């Protein structure tokens, strides 16, 4: 949050007010653009999801679905309407118009859907439960997993990047570079299964004889709440997920620092007799971290959209698995909700990245 010192002279307060006003105008303009963009995206996504080959009726009936059941399902899912009407009902609901509920060809009752503009994302074809309820059950799990993964990744990547840069071409740098390449190259599904094999199937706790780490899930069933238990369930998925991010962020920070280290202002700092630590950590790192912060903001949507492979391998009930299942089963309402919410997160993260960049780097202005 921005603040203004009460002792600041009026002119300084004025500058802050002007800056705040510019920032507010900028955010407002971007938010209005976001709404328009989301509206356009909703049309494109709705069309793509519906036009894609394979439909929910075949996904539901398996190999054989009887015509009698098809007719019932079409009506219940609203698929008996033309595509533009389906989109309008999805957007605005159908409680303002009459629908044919019993298949006799007569529109006899008002619909029951309110539409996403009024917060009704419909019901999942698979479970017949409200879509937002389905998402609400999974979102906290994904935020937990991906939030911790990102945090761990940063805590490791930042020191790794710094030491690699200041000890360029040292043994440590070579090792870190090798680790980074490996981290980016190793497929998550392979690494995840390997870790399960090692830490669940092979290695045992010497005192209890139990596996060293659980193979998946979020907690021990019927074990009651235990922080240690929660952490033990997080270890393997977090390690699997963090490896790629560690590699990415550490390489980025290394090259960012390497660009800054030869700059004249650092040479001046050294010439003024500042200790090397102070030069690196106070003057070089503060500038090198700016693009990292922007990157971090752009990666924020992953915290909400999850990671399909990690959630699948480690039986973590998050958004990634929900999305994958909805896509495979052509659960259109659920799929659309995840896509639209995901798109909104991405757009807002971009906005956040722009704001942060300008906030952290005084050379950038909100224009």
């Amino acid at each position: 949050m921005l603040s203004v010192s009460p002792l600041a002279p009026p002119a300084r307060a004025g500058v802050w007010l002007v800056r705040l006003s510019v920032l507010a105008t900028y955010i407002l303009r971007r938010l209005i653009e976001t709404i328009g963009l989301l509206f356009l995206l909703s049309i494109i996504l709705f069309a793509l999801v519906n036009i894609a080959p394979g439909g929910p009726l075949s996904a539901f009936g398996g190999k054989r679905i009887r015509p009698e059941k098809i007719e019932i399902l079409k009506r219940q899912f609203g698929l008996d309407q033309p595509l533009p009407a389906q989109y309008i009902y999805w957007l605005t609901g159908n409680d303002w118009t009459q629908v044919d509920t019993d298949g006799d060809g007569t529109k006899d009752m008002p619909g029951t859907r309110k539409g996403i503009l009024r917060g009704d994302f419909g019901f999942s074809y698979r479970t017949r439960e409200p879509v937002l309820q389905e998402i609400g059950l999974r979102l906290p799990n994904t935020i937990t997993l991906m939030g911790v993964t990102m945090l761990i990744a940063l805590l490791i990547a930042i020191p790794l990047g710094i030491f690699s840069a200041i000890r360029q071409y040292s043994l440590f740098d070579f090792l870190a570079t090798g680790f980074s390449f490996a981290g980016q190259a190793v497929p998550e599904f392979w690494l995840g299964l390997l870790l399960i094999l090692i830490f669940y199937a092979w290695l045992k706790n010497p005192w209890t004889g139990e596996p060293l780490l659980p193979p998946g899930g979020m907690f021990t069933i019927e074990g009651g709440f235990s922080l240690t238990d929660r952490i033990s369930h997080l270890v393997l998925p977090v390690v699997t997920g963090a490896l790629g991010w560690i590699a990415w962020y550490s390489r980025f920070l290394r090259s960012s620092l390497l660009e800054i280290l030869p700059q004249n202002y650092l040479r001046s700092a050294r010439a003024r007799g500042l200790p090397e630590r102070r030069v690196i950590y106070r003057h070089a790192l503060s500038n090198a971290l700016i693009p990292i912060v922007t990157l971090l903001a752009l990666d924020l949507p992953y915290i909400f959209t999850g990671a399909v492979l990690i959630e699948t391998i480690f039986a973590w009930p998050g958004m990634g698995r929900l999305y994958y299942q909805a896509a495979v089963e052509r659960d259109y309402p659920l799929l659309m909700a995840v896509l639209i919410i995901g798109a909104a997160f991405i757009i807002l993260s971009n906005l956040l990245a722009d704001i942060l960049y300008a906030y952290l780097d005084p050379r950038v202005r909100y224009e």
Partner: protein
Amino acid sequence: MSTKSRTLLFLTISVIASLVLASCGPSSTPTPNAAPSEPQGNALPEPDTNKSITIVIAEDPPSFNPMVADTGYDALVMELVMLGMTDVDPDGNVFPELAAELPTSDNGGVVLDEEAGTMSVTWKMREDVNWQDGIPVTADDVIFTWNAISDPTNGSWIPGSDYIDSVEKVDEHSFTVNYRSIYPGYLTQFGGEQLVIWPAHFCDLEQGFVAWDCGRQPLSDGPFTLTEWVEGDHMTFSKNEKYYMTRKPELDQVIVRIVPDDTVRKTMMMNGDADIDMWINVNTINELKDNASAKVSFSPTERWVMRLFMNEAAKGTIDPAATPHPILSDVHVRQAIRMAVDVDTINNQIFYGLAHPVWTEFARPPYACELARPAFDPEAARTLLEDAGWIDTDGDGVRECHGCENAEEGYKMEMEFITYAEYGEPLELTQQLIAEMLGSIGMKLNISVVEGSVLWDLAENGGIEQSGNFDIDLWDDGYAGVDPTDYIWEAYSKEAMTPGNGWNFFRWDNAAVDALIDETYTLDEQTRKDTFCAIADFINEEVPEIHLFTVPNADAYSARLEGVRSTANDLVTWNIADWQTK
């Protein structure tokens, strides 16, 4: 504020936010989806860990009502908490659950009106079955269930429902189903692997059969009750103390864990942390064969017959008479394909010898037909193709039409060969091997793999099979339960050739078979057997499909568990009340 301070401030906020998020993990307390607490009470005794088992499955069941989404996982958990009028054992015998006895003509339960061609079935129900809240299960529940199913707005469709005229209550524990025609599958119509009876006093008819809350928060009359459901993670079931069978179930607790990855499920079985892994594939069967912790239960019969479907209408059309397929409309070509596919090699090289060669639709009781196994004879296949006017004159290894039945002179014997992706590697390898085998007799097959939902979609959505847009397809099919009557109509009747009417998408048109299919709608078992075998002869002769093999219907179970009997007629939990731990 300096740039450095701003950056550090942001990173600090990020770290704190992540920590806060991490602490917001889910709790293991029951979700709102858990079963009503009243029937179970809060003072359940602690389950004996030795009498607690864990079933691992790939995904959450959508509900306890398989009629809604039919994923198999719904039927698996349904068997734990709900009962139907009847069920089917692994050998194909129908046995009563809520029914006191099976209605037959002999015991007066079935009354036929030969003149009108109608029948009525009177069911007598057990009087000692209660819901978990103590209220008896009665005929009112059956009537309620039927009314919910047949509701045009929120209902569904069950096999044979079109034949039902009415369902009437006789007394508290008996009811009559009046049919407008003869329906041989009546015994499993209100039972089997998909349909159960729902509690009238607990389910809300206004919410509808497919969407009512009791579909996910069921009131049990089965061996277990649902006590907790953490979506995407696990479900916990406790012994139903009010279950009607004395001293059953033997187990105190069943935990169903959601573990999407099959390798992890297999590892958990081998590590002794899981007791049941359903529908295991041949790779897992092969890996578990010498394992001390896990065993494999095989069903005595197998439902899914892997087969080749050959389109008799030209690709993209649906009328085999007006637009015959240039290659496959000739019965000699279809017979040659059958001769050229070496099922035993496929079995040994891909399925570890665990598959069972099958060469007829009627390969399992009670309607198993004796037919000689077609010989694998690629040389005879080549001769048959030569005689049918398919000769490779340009020496490129692919035959061309030179006097063939339905193609232009010089037409290449080249076709598309499709299978579906979801089955996985064994099917794709099978597809490649068959393409090689047919390539060796001069038939070029271009293979492709598509999603099942694309292959089987409606014609109006561009579904490949329904719109006739294929040459040869490979996938596994077969009838559920023990009555093939409706399945045979759907697969082989002329009426089922029309897109949307059924699954005769290979467009085999045979008037004699149509007449035979009509004859199968009788309760005379001997007539039915004879008629099905007559149909089998026609299929064997004209080869509209090539039946190849069945793969084992198998489930893995832990060595400490007894009583597990896999079945092709139901889910492995069909007899969970009988399971016990060593």
